[in-house]
């Protein structure tokens, strides 16, 4: 049965005409709000029958991440499809709808002394659906892993309206292919995530945070300290390098800074902080924050960079964000190169990267052509060491020139084959992903 109009598919009050011309693109001529999985399924089925393209959005924090189509026929909003479906306290698992923000999840879990060990930025705006679809993460992935380590099940609405369960609700499961993995980081190009089940952790008993500042020219020392900790039996949850510019903003010191955090029993945290103090070379300064200060510090840290809503339309400068992936040991050097290139290309830069996990984030401000030139130069430097550079936030107009995803991987035909299998008409988030998928 084909349905002739969208009004027959979802109630009229859930349909809106599009806002005009969003500078980040990824919009839709019609905005449809889903209030249920059935809504999602009906809208997709309708789109599939009528060959209409569909963009998917929840909190909109990643609206500037990929996409070379200004708007699709439909913008499917999941922002109102939210809430916790089931929190099984004894099993340390949570099932949640995609439009729920990370903050809503964290607040709810904290009441039972538990948490979801994901710490990407902007927790009150970013929804779990978007975080999983974009595979976003924060510095504590060093110890706790990223979405692929925490998602144990999903419900996916395929483009033809089928609802497919992947994984399950138990923490260990190898029945069939690990289909969860396909949808994590797929940027919504393979299906709409309508429910997610995640593995939880108990809230840490105690949180410790030290900031270690290195004097000018102390990058090698910093590299050595990071390696020394990683080669020890200490168990940091984060070992994040801050460039001087972002460090000044967050710590008051315009110096390379290492953010060393521990989460454990209080005794274990104190013991590790002591160990770090004893192993620091001369000439560096260490500030150990109280638990309260640490929590405020992380809060500030997680409110850096573009969030899809904080671009200033009147500013002469443009803001952009990049994600770098590299070997962990290359992180300090990559950040140093980024800093130098920022000078060459006249962009202002704030950056941080995980000396133990290999993901770095670069936030930029400058003229569009400078940002593009900088990105290209940085990409070629990072790729030389087998790393990559992705543009996680750029105004729509700049994306083609900046080449959001970089070179296609050698196995691109497999990616295309998977896309073809799940969404043969290429309707879902068209051109949002690697190689124009």
């Amino acid at each position, binding site marked *: 049965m084909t349905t002739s109009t969208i009004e027959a598919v979802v109630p009229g009050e859930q349909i809106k005409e599009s806002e005009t011309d969003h500078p980040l693109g990824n919009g839709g001529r019609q905005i449809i709000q889903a209030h249920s999985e059935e809504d999602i399924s009906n809208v997709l089925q309708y789109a599939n029958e009528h060959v209409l393209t569909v963009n998917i959005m929840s909190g909109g924090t990643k609206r500037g991440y990929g996409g070379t189509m200004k708007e699709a026929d439909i913008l499917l909003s999941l922002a109102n499809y939210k809430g916790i479906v089931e929190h099984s306290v004894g099993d340390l698992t949570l099932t949640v709808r995609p439009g729920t923000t990370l903050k809503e999840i964290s607040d709810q879990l904290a009441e039972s002394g538990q948490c979801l060990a994901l710490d990407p930025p902007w927790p009150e705006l970013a929804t779990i659906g978007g975080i999983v679809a974009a595979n976003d993460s924060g510095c504590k992935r060093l110890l706790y892993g990223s979405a692929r380590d925490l998602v144990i099940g999903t419900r996916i609405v395929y483009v033809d309206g089928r609802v497919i369960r992947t994984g*399950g609700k138990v923490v260990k499961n190898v029945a069939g292919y690990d289909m969860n993995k396909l949808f994590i980081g797929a940027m919504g190009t393979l299906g709409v995530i309508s429910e997610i089940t995640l593995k939880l952790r108990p809230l840490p008993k105690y949180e410790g945070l030290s900031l270690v500042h290195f004097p000018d020219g102390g990058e090698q020392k910093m590299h050595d300290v990071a390696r020394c900790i990683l080669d020890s039996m200490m168990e940091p949850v984060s070992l994040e390098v801050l460039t001087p510019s972002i460090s000044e903003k967050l710590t008051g010191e315009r110096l390379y800074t290492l953010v060393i955090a521990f989460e454990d029993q209080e005794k274990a945290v104190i013991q590790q902080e002591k160990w770090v103090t004893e192993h620091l070379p001369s000439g560096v300064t260490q500030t150990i924050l109280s638990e309260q200060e640490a929590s405020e510090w992380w809060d500030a840290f997680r409110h850096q960079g573009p969030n899809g809503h904080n671009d200033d339309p009147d500013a002469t400068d443009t803001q952009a964000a990049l994600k770098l992936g590299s070997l962990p040991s290359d992180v300090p050097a990559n950040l140093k190169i980024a800093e130098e290139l920022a000078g060459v290309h006249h962009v202002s830069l704030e950056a941080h990267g995980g000396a133990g996990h290999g993901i770095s984030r670069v936030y930029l401000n400058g003229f569009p052509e400078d940002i593009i030139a900088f990105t290209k130069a940085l990409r070629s430097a990072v790729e030389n060491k087998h790393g990559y550079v992705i543009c996680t936030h750029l105004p729509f107009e700049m994306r083609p020139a900046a080449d959001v995803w970089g070179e296609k991987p050698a196995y691109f035909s497999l990616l295309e084959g998977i896309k073809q299998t799940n969404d043969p008409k290429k309707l879902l988030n068209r051109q949002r992903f690697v190689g124009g998928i």
Partner: protein
Amino acid sequence: MFRKKQAKQKPDAVASALITIAGKENVLYLKEDLLSYECDGYTLERGMPRAVVFVRNTQHVADVVKQLNALGVPYIARGAGTGLSGGATPRGGEIIISLVRMKRLLELDLENRQAVVEPGYINLKLTQSISDKGYYYAPDPSSQYACTIGGNVAENSGGAHCLKYGVTTNHILGLEVVLPSGEMMEIGKSGVPDQPGYDLLGLLTGSEGTLGIVTKITVNILKNPEGKKTALAYFDDIDDASQAVSDIIATGIIPAALEMMDEIAIEGVEASAYPVGHPRDIAAFLLIEVDGIQAGIDDQIDDILTVCKSNHVRDVKVAQDEAERSMWWANRKMGFGAMGAISPDYLVQDGVIPRTRLPEVLTRITEISRKYELRIANIFHAGDGNLHPLILFDARVPGESDRASKAGSECLQVCADVGGSITGEHGVGIEKSAEMRFIFSDEEMRAQTDIRHVFNPDDLLNPGKLFPEPGRCVEVKHNEKKEAAASIN
């Protein structure tokens, strides 16, 4: 399924082609040589391969695959053959591509906590060869002294310490694979995280050798924990032991391992080569290990002892030294094999349940045991709800193999009923393909086979595994097994 050929003294055309690629010393084709490749660690179903080729390098794998494609002959990758679901078992007539001679440790990058190994490298060897530097490889299946890391990747294997450290997929950073097209692909280049593109690493891990043949693996290695303590807690009532498991987790501790064995399992391990001297009249014991920063360990173990005491533990003790700890672990890790001491045959099952449903599931397993008049021992990773009911039977008694298989299937149904899974670490293989229907609809399985088609369009790589053949329900499977078992004996 495939026409069986009578093995001849001279290599047939296919074996000759394999010899041309890999050399005579690397090909088996005589029937007597092929017998040990009829099945893996799951012995209820068997099939004869057509030949076995021991590849020495990635090029061999690619050449063999291309050659077999050209000839239209199906093939199966095989590691140590310790799999427990028939993943490496032929349906009949396949070529076995054995990776056991690709067994080198290729690179060690301590700075980035990475090691690169060939697929035939044995799991335990990795830990042994880096332990002097203070590192280890976390996934520790009980078969780790024999199984290969390639097999671990294919099965997404777990182990006792996965509760805290995760299963194989959480430790794989890169793979080199030969696809069924014969093309070689490097995925997760150099171990750099979050490569742009769909997560093929995650998809390939646990695909039971049906999407590609893994020829090189980059794994994440970990630094040894600073401190470690192991406790053994004896309970008179299995419900108390189950409750203790939940209460330990509720204290906010994630133990490195939290294992349980019931009375029959204890009878088995005490009769085996690694007895510990467990009291024989207890209902269950918990083997609990915590590790991490030394300064926090004592508090954790104290909290655990308190939980055990509040759950009426009869006796609880902490290992006094490494020798005692090792003895407890050897006793646990040899648990499956130990059943051989009290039963001529046993079938290992591998269901998963939400941890909180443990008491009711154990009760239902007891009922299944009564119904089929077969003893069922329980050894399991209690912390993550991964049960291993071991169904004891005697294949020489007519009908017992069949009853064992049915009882196993019913245990999995119980797991599915409480919202769990039919396998936590051993894989689906041949054994549980019909039971996939307990947890997935036909439409959901089709979504998976559609993905297989992208990688393995002609289904020449490990055909007939993982998914039920259309129309093949559990009943049909049991009848087939009955015939298979009859033909073995």
